[in-house]
């Protein structure tokens, strides 16, 4: 069955604590009520606490904490920028600029608050400024091509997965900027809707609404792109 294959494939990609295995997941799902807000896993909570601690030490002029913060957060920022700007050279410029701003603005972080929304808000602002300058110099921001580039080593699987992801990627290109950005933040940075709201200076309800509309638009776009037999199969699902 197609989904079982995809399941196997995708379970390899999920974090270890999530990947309990397809069989157990299919037959014995944990009873998490659907209406409950997403709770951070132990690892996620520990990661958040670590960042808060590092940030506090960074404000106290601890150089090793600054280095560790960079090591922990830079990959997230790199993925975020790469999802929006498809050129590694530009990503590197953005990262350097962003870290410079983080350093200069470190007193604006309030101890005890989540760190990632604070840094992502600065990263987002850095990108907006960069985009303005780039627009002035007649540049044009590329789309999120790289977002779905797949690291699989099996070429056949990679192609299938790439093609499937391509459909979503193309659908995403049609979304308004605000919706697209919210989806990318949710996917790439792993923040919750409430944290994305902090990073974008919005409310959690507005973020959820944007994401919900974005998913609905993607779904609609996929419906138009999909093969007739897939649509037939889908009739039972929705």
């Amino acid at each position, binding site marked *: 069955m197609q*989904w079982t294959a995809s399941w196997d494939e*995708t379970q390899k990609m999920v974090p270890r604590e999530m990947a309990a295995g397809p069989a157990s997941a299919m037959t014995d799902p944990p009873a998490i009520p659907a209406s409950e807000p997403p709770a951070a896993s132990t690892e996620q909570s520990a990661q958040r606490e670590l960042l808060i601690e590092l940030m506090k030490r960074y404000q106290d002029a601890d*150089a090793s904490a600054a280095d560790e913060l960079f090591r922990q957060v830079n990959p997230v920022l790199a993925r975020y920028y790469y999802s929006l700007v498809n050129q590694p050279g530009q990503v590197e410029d953005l990262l350097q600029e962003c870290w410079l701003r983080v350093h200069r603005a470190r007193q604006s972080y309030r101890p005890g608050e989540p760190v990632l929304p604070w840094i992502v808000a600065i990263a987002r602002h850095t990108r907006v400024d960069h985009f303005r300058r780039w627009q002035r110099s007649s540049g044009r921001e590329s789309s999120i091509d790289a977002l*779905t580039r797949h690291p699989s080593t099996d070429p056949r699987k990679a192609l299938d997965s790439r093609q499937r992801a391509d459909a979503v990627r193309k659908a995403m290109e049609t979304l308004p900027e605000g919706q697209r950005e919210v989806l990318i933040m*949710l996917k790439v940075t792993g923040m919750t*809707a409430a944290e994305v709201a*902090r990073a974008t200076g919005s409310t959690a309800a507005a973020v959820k609404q944007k994401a919900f509309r974005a998913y609905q638009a993607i779904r609609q776009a996929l419906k138009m792109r999909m093969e007739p037999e897939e649509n037939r199969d889908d009739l039972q699902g929705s």
Partner: protein
Amino acid sequence: MTCREVDQLLSEGRPAAELQRLPGVPPHLETCVRCRRILEWMLTPSPEPEMRASLAERVQAITHTDLKKVKPLPPLGVAALGAVAVTALVAALHVLTLGVDGWTRLSATQAGLMGGLALAVLLSAAASLLSSIRPGSAQGLPPGLPLALLVMGFPMLAAVLFPFEEWSRVLEHGIECLAAGLMVAAMTTGLTWLAARRGYSVDWSRSGALIGAVGGAAAIFALQVSCPAHEAGHLIVWHGLAAVIAIGGGYLAGRRMNS
């Protein structure tokens, strides 16, 4: 489980891997190609571009060269007290120069409501300003609240509390009041701006307008204390104009900083 419910769960930021294991989701995914594709996309790791090792060195050079202990921005209560203190200081200077003729002629209701409005604008502007210069902070009050209180609340309150007289009287002493109000607003705005520069604003136009609102609140309060012309038209036109100019000036200065 329906597609709509899947979208709702994803919109909350619930990880796709966790979502797949919720009761009711796997059977839905068996039959819904579109949900499957969206979840597959969510589960596909985002690529991380290869960065040169020199990036870490460059960032290290930035952070290590100028690494000093910094004091975090104050909590909301302290920031609000600071805004009130700055306003009180500037208003005191204004009153020392122009006297308290206006305040002594106010009724208790007028004094309470006009003073209360100025305080409400001041506190809400301080809260919104602090939020706007601290990236990633939760949105509490709507940032437009202090501006709305000042631009709409003040004229409405003045119209209710004070009588309207002939238009010829509205123009009397208007320019003096406007000039004095702008002086108070400029001083308060300048001091608030200096304090706000410690933060990091992602939108200086908004922060500038809020700083202007602090100045505007100081202006209407100081003028209410010193100005003996208790006429609604005068208050709305001249005192209100000082506040509007303070907000507009702050907005334009912030916009300039943005670009």
